[in-house]
């Protein structure tokens, strides 16, 4: 069953993600596809994540289609103007890619080509407008298409905000994204079911499926690093202490178990889970089994 059918029929959906590598060696991608297909409903293919140059996400998503794993093609506004974005989207549809996740994208200054020009011709909302327009058979300039796609567009939202302005801006933008055509959301990683519950209370009126983001912790340092450097991630102290207290050989198990417990707690509050394993892609089926999915 496709991701779209699952979410639209109210079933709990599971996605994960992996990033293409830097270079032309596709072994890792093919291994991930083999491990994940038939297990998750769909896999996000990141788009030059963290502004680090890698193999094209479009090509990687097409490899997923060929390998039998439904991709969610992540598209950022950082590297392409509206001409290239629409062109790649049409190409994606031709390659059998159905799900698209519209993102703004990180600043190039944060990546491995910090001198690069950030494009941001469109932003996540206007990109969703473009996807909606393509679905209707027209490009952004209202030229008619010969053959049109039927994408299932999604977007992202940040659950943890540390200022009132940030929280309100996230909600306002979520509303705009829905108005522009977003039909599902994936969140930044969440570690606090209580604050996730509060967030879901605020957005349930939007009646748009939300897939909660999960990043399994690898060790305490990893958690502290994310708290200090990654916007929208807040790992509570008790989880960091649990990781710190675990013996080195047990850390992986503790981290995976913690992720599974978070999924169990938050499953009743939302419509799906999005597991970002960051190097542990092959352990996603294990996390799912531990979470009873």
């Amino acid at each position, binding site marked *: 069953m496709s991701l779209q059918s699952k979410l639209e029929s109210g079933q709990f959906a599971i996605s994960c993600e992996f990033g293409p590598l830097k270079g032309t060696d596709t072994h890792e991608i093919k291994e991930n596809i083999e491990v994940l297909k038939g297990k998750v409903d769909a896999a996000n293919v990141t788009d030059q994540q963290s502004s680090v140059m890698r193999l094209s996400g479009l090509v990687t998503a097409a490899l997923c289609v060929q390998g039998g794993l439904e991709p969610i093609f992540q598209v950022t506004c950082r590297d392409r103007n509206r001409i290239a974005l629409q062109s790649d989207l049409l190409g994606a549809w031709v390659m059998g890619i159905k799900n698209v996740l519209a993102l703004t994208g990180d600043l190039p200054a944060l990546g491995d080509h910090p001198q690069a020009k950030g494009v941001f011709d469109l932003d996540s*909302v206007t990109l969703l407008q473009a996807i909606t327009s393509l679905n209707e058979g027209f490009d952004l300039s209202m030229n008619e298409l010969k053959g049109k796609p039927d994408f299932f567009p999604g977007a992202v939202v940040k659950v943890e905000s540390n200022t009132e302005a940030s929280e309100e801006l996230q909600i306002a933008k979520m509303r705009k994204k829905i108005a522009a055509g977003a039909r599902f959301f994936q969140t930044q990683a969440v570690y606090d079911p209580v604050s996730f519950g509060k967030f879901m209370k605020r957005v349930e009126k939007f009646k748009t499926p939300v897939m909660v983001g999960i990043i399994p912790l690898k060790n305490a340092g990893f958690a502290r690093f994310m708290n200090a450097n990654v916007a*929208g991630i807040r790992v509570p102290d008790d989880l960091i202490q649990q990781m710190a207290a675990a013996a080195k050989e047990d850390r992986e198990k503790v981290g995976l178990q913690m992720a599974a417990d978070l999924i169990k707690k938050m499953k009743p509050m939302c419509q799906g889970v999005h597991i970002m394993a960051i190097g542990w892609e092959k352990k996603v089926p294990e996390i799912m089994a531990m979470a009873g999915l």
Partner: protein
Amino acid sequence: MLYSEQKHFDEIIAYLEKDKNVFIMGCEGCAQSSGSGGPEQVAEMKQKLTEAGKNVTGTRNCDFLCSKALVKSELRGRVEQLKAADAVLVLTCGVGIQAVAASINKPVYPGCNTVNLGGSRGEWEGTERCFECGQCLLYHTGGICPLTACTKSLVSGACGGANKGKCEISKDRDCGWELIYNRLKERGLLSRLDDMMKPLDHKKIMPRPEMMSLARYGLENPGKVTDKPAPPPAPAPAATPKAGAAPAGAPKPAANPPKEVK
């Protein structure tokens, strides 16, 4: 005003590697206010270049180097000094440097980098910046420009990168959209956050022909303006019996349409 900063002297001296004789121009408009090209900086530059072994054939400060007509009239008494120069170094904004380069048949080098449109009081006092986008969005954003306040120039709202109110690019830089939110809230305008924006129009905005003064155009383009009356504009509403039917506010044909402005 245009805020400019003088380039590093090493860069300037590298431009002049093959040129011995230099004429220096400064501007007593924005560049003087910026402290990058007023009489004081021109005098300093003359001294530095002389110390570096160059022969400064002359210097000239003008009021507005951005006006080609003024550039030419101000240089009238300096023709010999200019002729003696291998190159002209210009200490002002990018507009002024281009105006000088268009006016003098010599290699013209920039002595300054134009950083931004600054405040309006003759020096860079404020933090407000204009993107010159030609489609002002300030109504929607509480008077804070999202194109300059947000490092990604996002028109639809904040990205997810802000942390404690600061932009992901630097802990010293405020998230532009949080500034906008706080301003809208303060003014009771939060509903503007829901305004849907169209993708920005990035066509380069050209000044409209009627914005260019015919008198100045004639001064800057001698020989291109003749005494012949301007040809009547092609089917203009004023020339037809239905002239009175033109809706109020419809653009009127310019009284003196500038010639040869593309």
